[in-house]
């Protein structure tokens, strides 16, 4: 039986599709509960990374504590925990959900339920969360709240009869959401007297404080000065500060007790010691069992990052180290490429994670990067019985020593309007998918299930899917297992020399088309040079495609600038500068765009 104190706490998250109004609703609730003055209020407080705002997604979990005086006259503590919103961060999503007891499901009154929302709703239901549906944007001319109400009942099977009809943008019926949060969502059910068990649902690195772990205290209590222990990593630390979250801010306090959501600081230097999903307990009185759900994250996608300017190698290392402090899922180690020089092999949870890291490196650290084509991790079964893993095609052993290869397969589910089923099936077939099943969610929408090789998804599958469904389809996938496959290593040769950074592993059937397309792309992106440059794609020394960049005939500025020698020199310097940004591969100067162009073959 929950205590009186616990009865006054609600820990919940908001689930919504991009643009359905999650951040706006959060803002209104924060505003309404006076947790932030109007002046402090900046639109969409929760998404505080630039990148998150632009992409309209949440990358890192965020949390905020609100105090709300309900109509019953009691004061309640509402902890809103924001969830990362993408399949790549599925594990983080599930940990965030584990920190909640309920969820507000925001559905757009005009657009209805979208695939991504549904995926997260299922995760929430799996985590035994109580769900409060809310229909937003009811003031839109195209709003159909009653149709949507029915949809929620039909598709998700939730009772939506009492779902508040709101407009977060225009501050309509926000009180009703707050009241229903209290009446509809359960209070935490922890034991304040039991040994400490606090779930880590996120962690952040702060230059002054070290790692700040975000926790939901399930049982017991923790105070400043306590010696805490991470139950899975076994690391121990002394708590130097703890507290709860104000919007965009930390509020230190004396102790966190069962039911509280807050943060702990304890001079932790490495985010890896505080893995998301781990359980914090007290060293003096440890809990017997950790909270369920902890899982070591595995990188699924790998690529090489190289600075365009080789002199910035050290800057790139520093930047990766800084990002890793906040992103334990990112891995990197030095690698060297004959074509690209010194760089790092980086591992990511998925393609979006890869894109986000790349973008953050470029924006937050002003680095110009060349990225090699992303690769998955292959299992190579050698003739001598050994099995080696391969995440960099360059390191492919001699095929004579290889018995067979295995590649990772994922369970993919694609949600889309039924009009596009044909297009999607064609695409999945083309990407070596095997059809599993297809569910009609209603008359107009289907959920297609395919088993697909991950290496077919990581190139440009998202883009291809979007363009074949006018942007309506959404994709979710999870790792299934490894499968034997007829894979070959495709090499690209410029002027007869293999360019290591352009090698990749591909299914035999697709090698020819892929090789030809890459050769064409490179031809478009490599400028004419003094000599004719043959571009070849080859498998095991056999050329399967060839293009030629013709030699140029002219590169001369012979005008007499009336003694203006400086101008002439500037023009030459500019030309030389442009070439410095290129990579010398043998005799050939290759611009960075050429390396990038092979990543977008569908364009």
């Amino acid at each position, binding site marked *: 039986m929950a205590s009186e104190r616990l009865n006054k706490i609600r820990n919940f998250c908001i689930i919504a599709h991009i643009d359905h109004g999650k951040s706006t609703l959060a803002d209104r609730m924060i505003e309404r509960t006076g947790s932030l003055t109007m002046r402090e209020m900046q639109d969409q407080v929760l998404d505080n990374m630039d990148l998150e705002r632009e992409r309209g997604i949440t990358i890192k979990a965020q949390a905020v504590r609100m105090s709300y005086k309900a109509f019953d006259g009691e004061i309640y503590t509402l902890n809103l925990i924001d969830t990362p919103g993408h399949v790549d961060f599925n594990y983080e999503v599930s940990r965030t959900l584990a920190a909640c007891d309920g969820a507000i499901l925001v559905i757009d009154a005009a657009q209805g339920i979208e695939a991504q929302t549904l995926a997260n709703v299922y995760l929430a239901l799996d985590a035994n969360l109580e769900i409060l549906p809310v229909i937003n944007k009811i003031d839109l001319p195209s709003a159909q709240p009653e149709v949507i109400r029915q949809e929620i009942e039909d598709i998700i099977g939730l009772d939506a009869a009492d779902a508040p009809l709101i407009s977060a943008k225009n501050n309509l019926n926000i009180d009703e959401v707050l009241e229903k949060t209290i009446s509809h969502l359960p209070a935490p059910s922890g034991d304040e007297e039991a040994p400490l068990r606090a779930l880590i649902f996120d962690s952040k690195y702060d230059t002054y404080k070290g790692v700040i772990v975000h926790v939901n205290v399930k049982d017991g209590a923790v105070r400043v000065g306590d010696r805490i222990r991470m139950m899975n990593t076994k690391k121990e630390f002394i708590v130097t500060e703890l507290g709860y979250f104000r919007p965009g801010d930390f509020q230190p306090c004396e102790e966190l007790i069962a039911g509280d959501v807050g943060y702990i600081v304890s001079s932790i230097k490495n985010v890896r010691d505080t893995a998301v999903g781990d359980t914090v307990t007290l060293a003096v009185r440890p809990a017997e069992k950790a909270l369920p759900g902890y899982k070591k994250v595995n990188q699924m996608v790998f690529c090489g990052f190289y600075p365009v300017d080789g002199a910035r190698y050290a800057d790139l290392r520093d930047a990766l180290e800084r990002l890793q402090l906040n992103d334990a899922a990112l891995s990197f180690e030095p690698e060297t490429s004959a074509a690209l020089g010194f760089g790092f092999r980086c591992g990511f949870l998925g393609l979006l994670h890869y894109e986000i890291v790349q973008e953050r490196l470029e924006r937050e650290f002003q680095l110009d990067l060349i990225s090699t084509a992303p690769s998955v991790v292959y299992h190579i079964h050698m003739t001598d019985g050994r099995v080696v893993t391969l995440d960099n095609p360059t390191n492919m052993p001699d095929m004579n020593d290889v018995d067979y290869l295995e590649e990772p397969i994922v369970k993919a589910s694609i949600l889309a309007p039924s009009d596009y089923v044909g297009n999607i099936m064609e695409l999945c077939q083309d990407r070596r998918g095997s059809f599993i099943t297809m569910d009609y969610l209603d008359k107009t929408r289907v959920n297609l299930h395919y088993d697909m090789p991950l290496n077919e998804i990581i190139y440009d599958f998202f883009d291809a899917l979007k363009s074949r469904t006018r942007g309506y389809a959404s994709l979710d996938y999870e790792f299934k297992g490894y499968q034997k496959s007829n894979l070959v290593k495709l090499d690209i040769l410029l002027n007869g020399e293999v360019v290591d950074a352009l090698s990749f592993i591909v299914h035999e059937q697709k090698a020819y088309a892929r090789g030809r397309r890459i050769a064409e792309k490179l031809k478009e992106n490599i400028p004419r040079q003094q000599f004719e440059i043959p571009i070849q794609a080859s498998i095991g020394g056999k050329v399967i495609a060839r293009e030629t960049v013709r030699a140029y005939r002219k590169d001369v500025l012979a005008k007499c600038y*009336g003694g203006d020698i400086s101008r002439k020199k500037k023009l030459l310097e500019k030309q030389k500068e442009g070439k410095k940004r290129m990579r010398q591969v043998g005799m050939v100067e290759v611009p960075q765009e050429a390396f990038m162009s092979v990543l977008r073959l569908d364009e």
Partner: protein
Amino acid sequence: MSHEMMDWQIPTAVYLHIPFCRQKCLYCDFLSFAGCDSATMADYLAALEHEIQAAGSLPTAQVPLQTIYFGGGTPSLLPPEDLRRLLQALALSFQLTPDAEISLEANPGTLHPDDLKTLRQAGFTRISIGLQASQDHLLRRIGRIHNASDFSKTVRAARAAGFRSISADMMFGLPGQTLDDVADTTDFLLDHQVDHLSYYGLILEDGTPLAAAAARGELSDLPDDETERTQYHLIRRRLADAGLEPYEISSSARSGHRCRHHLVYWQGRSYYGFGLSAHSYLYGQRRANTERMTDYLAAFHHPAEQSSTGQNPFAASSLLETVDREEAMNEMMLLGLRLTDGVSFNDFAGRFGTPLTVRYGKVIDALVDRGLLVRDDRGVRLTCLGLDLANLVFEQFV
């Protein structure tokens, strides 16, 4: 000061900029103004005279000048009396050698036969006439104000006036220009017995109307690179056959008619520059005058009765760069390789005390391997391929 300087550091050349035109050509990005009133032109001439006077106080002013070049713009737009006055101002501030080369750029049709006589008498020895092409439809495409027959008249009048060295400019790679057009223009110029010819490939400079037209896709008949190069080599071959030897990447001349003033640039020697936007290379410094007319006039504005002697000769200029020994070496290569004779081992070692092969051995080896440079006992020079890909060579020296 001059006794400490090496020969190449002593300026004996003057460039004078006349930034006026009747009409801007569509490809031109040099600083010049079309349709200026006579009052502005008079103010400009006064300021220019003051600048020349002020330069008379420079430590090298007593060394006689060997070349003077009036460039533009269209210097021939100025009344001959004004041009004479400028020459006199130069003669007062500096001395002139008896065989000084004094060139004037002229547009066909801008000079009356009497004007040419006056100019010859004033001391001009050489005239450079911009024909560009002998086909009137091509001249219209690039916004020239004259036609081919204007050119013929001007050449005849110049000879009659006693000019013994006549140069012409022509262009290739023009929109709509065929190989035959280029051959015809070359023959046209040879028929006129020109002594010197400069030939420039069209460059679509940013900000010019022609570049804008190209950006709008209106120049679909621009010759491709292959054709442009064929045109270039055709010009050089025809001229050589007629006794005008190519001596520089853009110039061919009869014996004794090489442009000594331009050779100053390519040999990395020093020169004065007077007038709006004019460049100079003095005492190891490259400077440029302002490009703003009002600033220039203000810098050299003086009441007529006052002398400008003692005024700062650099009042309108700003320093672009100081050419140290390293940079001077680079420049000697980058500029000298434009010349058919290239850069000689003797000249390089004589100037810097370091053998060329010691300073640039590796770079030169690589360029020779790439077929862009040829090396012999005397020195290094561009190959025929090197003429087409000269920037690949030059960029090694910036």
